């Protein structure tokens, strides 16, 4: 890439090169683009052909960025509420006034009720994911930072499982992303097969994986195996599809392993040298013969056997595991089984297999250190940490379900102040029973919300609203996979300013300077990032801007050379030093050390009586190109493409229920109901329906009780609280029961 990242154009406009993250958008994918600014307005977004990963490609969320940046409903100044909670009455204030008010409140709660009476909520995917922890620990000084999805069911479980079983950073499909010469890199190999398990990366671009890399690799010869309850577009281009019953995943994974182990298709050398507990594991898979697994999963026996064989014989083969691993109370065991699948087939840390990050995250040191701001006695008060060690060992947050209990009961202490950073969770994004959260959150006496639009959550709770800039409006560093297996670090360059917005790190610094000045020495985001980059990578933020992005490269078979362990010994950074097919930690925490299938809490098999009343299996959360969770509903071009919340329903089921394409229907169960538009399609099993998440209606009445129609199509109201696994992870978002009927109006 050329050094010059900001260019003056002849017509008086200028163009800034940047790597995108959020807000708005998605996970840290860091797509390369050029933003053109004229008279203070973003007039053009163009993909950067020189970017090694995206090569000019952009999705429509970035192509419509100007509509988002200059949206008339955007909140671009700090606001304070002047009416009652839930009334749309606000007054513009200065940052000084906002900060003075906030600091006074924080000090008041600390003095009178203890720092732990303050809680920070964070959302998923946005840049805030890196900063809401330091905000809580080091700027505010509370041990209570919460990601409010029931059972922490997004990414966290997969990271935790990887920590415990592999002792490594996040496992990712090897798409040659670490190398500047990409697919031409001499060490890299094309995966013969790529298995995508509960994951559709084309639309989701998960965690920093540019989803259309799958297409790149297909063009180079990779074949696809899809494991998904829905036939999505990628399934139609796949070699094999295992269309399983939602929530039966662990049985299917064990069925594949049954075939691979009993037919001796596994990598004996790798098992011998680098795996712990193979004999016990082998015994366990005997409980999952393909005929039995076929009954549990609805996948034909022959398909299970065939896929097990092709996957095991492919050299190399890769696997991408999706959110379906997290959103399942049986998901820890699924994740365990899937890591065993890639380990037993010899695909860990090899070219074209699975890459794994070193034990320490790129640029993660500072984030870890911010926690030392909290004295031990305060850290001990973290909600739910003692009850759920498997969660609290890997994740520095509260336990989400315990947090709702605490809000409702005031036990072990009352929470009084809330801070919502990029989390609109009374919308159907991540909380189970958002209506219950909504009632429980009323007990907070003072709330701060950081966001870009007045969301239902902000309208309901904010006393002070702090406006966030989009990624076009601030300096930053995009770290794919949040640094846990970083493909690259990209420069996010400020191209323009809109109103008076401050980024996550700027707010951390500003607030931190007032409350803990000794740990917040920086005066700007650029200065902060230089201090993070320089010791680890040897260059500062300005140099990163000139490089555009930095790819760290990749060393394969790190376990052979002692690069995975802090002590420099060969092996994996686990208790036994090996890949734990038998988990010593799960056993210590009271769960089974070996994977097992357990029925979803509500299913045709676990609750047959209830299933008579609610005969359909409901799965949720498939992605659309037009939105990122609850974002983008107010962007006209995107909303024109996806105007309504859709439920996919099989033609036979629809006919039986008297439902036609485009009809409004009610989806309901024991816990709640939601209104959706029917999309009649054969791609879904007749006994299953799929409903979209993230819906609210920015065009509707803002005030209570309407709150932008947040309760109309809120699919998460059908999801129960605290239906989590033995170790504290998982929820029912991918598998619950429901019935569907035509709506009256």
């Amino acid at each position, binding site marked *: 890439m050329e050094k010059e990242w900001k260019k003056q154009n002849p017509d008086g406009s200028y163009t800034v090169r940047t790597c995108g993250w959020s807000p708005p958008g998605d996970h840290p994918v860091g797509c390369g683009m050029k933003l053109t600014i004229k008279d203070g307005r973003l007039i053009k977004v163009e993909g950067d052909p020189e970017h090694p990963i995206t090569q000019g490609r952009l999705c*429509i969320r970035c192509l419509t960025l100007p509509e988002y940046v200059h949206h008339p409903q955007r909140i671009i100044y700090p606001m304070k509420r002047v009416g009652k909670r839930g009334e749309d009455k606000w007054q513009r204030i200065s940052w000084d006034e906002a900060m003075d008010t906030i600091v006074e409140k924080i000090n008041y709660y600390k003095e009178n009720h203890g720092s732990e009476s303050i809680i920070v909520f964070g959302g998923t995917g946005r840049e805030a994911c890196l900063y809401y922890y330091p905000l809580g620990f080091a700027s505010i000084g509370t041990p209570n930072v919460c990601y409010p999805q029931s059972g922490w069911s997004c990414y966290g479980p997969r990271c935790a499982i990887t920590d415990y079983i592999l002792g490594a950073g996040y496992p990712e499909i090897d798409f040659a992303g670490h190398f500047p010469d990409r697919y031409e890199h001499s060490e890299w190999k094309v995966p013969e097969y790529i298995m995508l398990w509960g994951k559709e990366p084309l639309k989701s671009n998960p965690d920093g994986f540019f989803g259309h890399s799958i297409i790149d690799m297909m063009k180079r010869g990779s074949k696809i195996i899809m494991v998904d309850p829905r036939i999505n577009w990628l399934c139609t281009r796949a070699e094999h599809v295992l269309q399983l019953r939602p929530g039966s995943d662990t049985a299917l994974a064990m069925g594949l392993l049954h075939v691979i182990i009993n037919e001796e298709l596994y990598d004996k050398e790798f098992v011998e040298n680098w795996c712990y507990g193979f004999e016990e594991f082998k015994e366990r898979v005997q409980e999952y013969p393909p005929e039995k697994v076929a009954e549990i999963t609805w996948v034909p026996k022959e398909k299970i056997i065939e896929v097990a064989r092709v996957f095991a014989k492919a050299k190399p083969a890769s696997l991408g595991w999706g959110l379906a691993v997290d959103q399942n109370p049986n998901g820890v065991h699924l994740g365990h089984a899937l890591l065993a699948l890639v380990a037993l087939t010899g695909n860990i840390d090899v070219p074209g297999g699975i890459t794994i990050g070193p034990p320490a995250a790129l640029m993660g040191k500072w984030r870890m250190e911010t926690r030392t701001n909290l004295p031990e006695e305060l850290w001990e008060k973290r909600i739910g940490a003692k009850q759920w060690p498997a969660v609290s060992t890997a994740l520095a947050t509260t336990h989400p379900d315990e947090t709702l209990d605490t809000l409702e009961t005031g036990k072990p202490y009352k929470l009084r102040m809330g801070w919502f950073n990029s989390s609109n969770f009374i919308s159907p994004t991540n909380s189970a029973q958002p209506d219950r959260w909504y009632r429980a959150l009323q007990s907070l006496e003072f709330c701060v919300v950081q966001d870009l639009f007045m969301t239902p959550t902000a309208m309901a709770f904010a006393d002070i609203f702090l406006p966030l800039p989009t990624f076009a409006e601030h300096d930053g560093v995009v770290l794919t996979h949040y640094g846990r297996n970083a493909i690259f670090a990209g420069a996010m360059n400020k191209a323009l300013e809109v109103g008076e917005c401050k980024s996550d790190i700027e707010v951390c610094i500003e607030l931190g300077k007032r409350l803990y000045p000794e740990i917040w020495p920086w005066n700007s985001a650029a200065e902060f990032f230089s201090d993070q980059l320089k010791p680890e990578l040897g260059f500062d933020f300005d140099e990163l801007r000139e490089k555009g992005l930095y790819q760290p490269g990749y060393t394969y078979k790190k376990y052979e050379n002692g690069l995975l362990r802090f002590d420099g010994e060969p092996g994996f950074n686990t208790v036994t030093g090996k890949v734990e097919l038998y988990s010593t930690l799960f056993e210590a925490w009271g769960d089974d050390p070996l994977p097992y299938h357990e029925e979803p809490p509500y299913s045709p098999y676990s609750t047959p009586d209830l299933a008579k009343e609610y005969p359909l299996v409901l799965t949720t959360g498939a992605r659309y190109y037009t939105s990122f969770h609850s974002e983008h509903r107010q962007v*006209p*071009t995107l909303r024109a493409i996806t105007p309504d919340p859709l439920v996919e329903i099989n033609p036979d089921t629809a006919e039986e229920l008297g439902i036609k394409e485009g009809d409004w229907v009610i989806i309901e169960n024991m816990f709640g109901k939601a209104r959706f538009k029917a999309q009649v399609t054969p791609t879904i099993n007749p006994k299953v329906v799929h409903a979209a998440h993230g819906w609210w209606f920015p065009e509707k009445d803002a005030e209570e009780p309407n709150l932008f129609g947040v309760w109309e199509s809120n699919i998460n109201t059908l999801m129960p609280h605290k239906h989590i696994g033995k170790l504290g992870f998982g929820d029912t978002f991918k598998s619950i029961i429901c019935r569907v009927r035509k709506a009256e109006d």
Partner: protein
Amino acid sequence: MAKKGYGLLIDYEYCTGCYSCEVACKNELKLPHGKWGIKLLEERPWKINDEKWEWNYIPVPTALCNLCEDRVAEGKQPACVLHCLGQAMEYGPVEELAKKMAEKGTKVAMFVP
């Protein structure tokens, strides 16, 4: 005016239905809502047999497509081609694209708008 003898090749084996062509084109031609220079069409999914499905997206350039004459004159790719997530579009002389179609053999189309 669109350059004569040039066209757009669409590899609909790999058109993922992402709409980037549609939106990039709309931006390029500065079109209001409800007008398109290229429009994404969908052949909705149906089953050929127990194993195989048919489900195709295909973007069709409209009368408003000028094959990005200004961009092409500056040596750039057309906006739709550059941003296409599936890298399923190509711009070029009709004869050259026809050769590529023959080479690819399946699921490929050409438009000369």
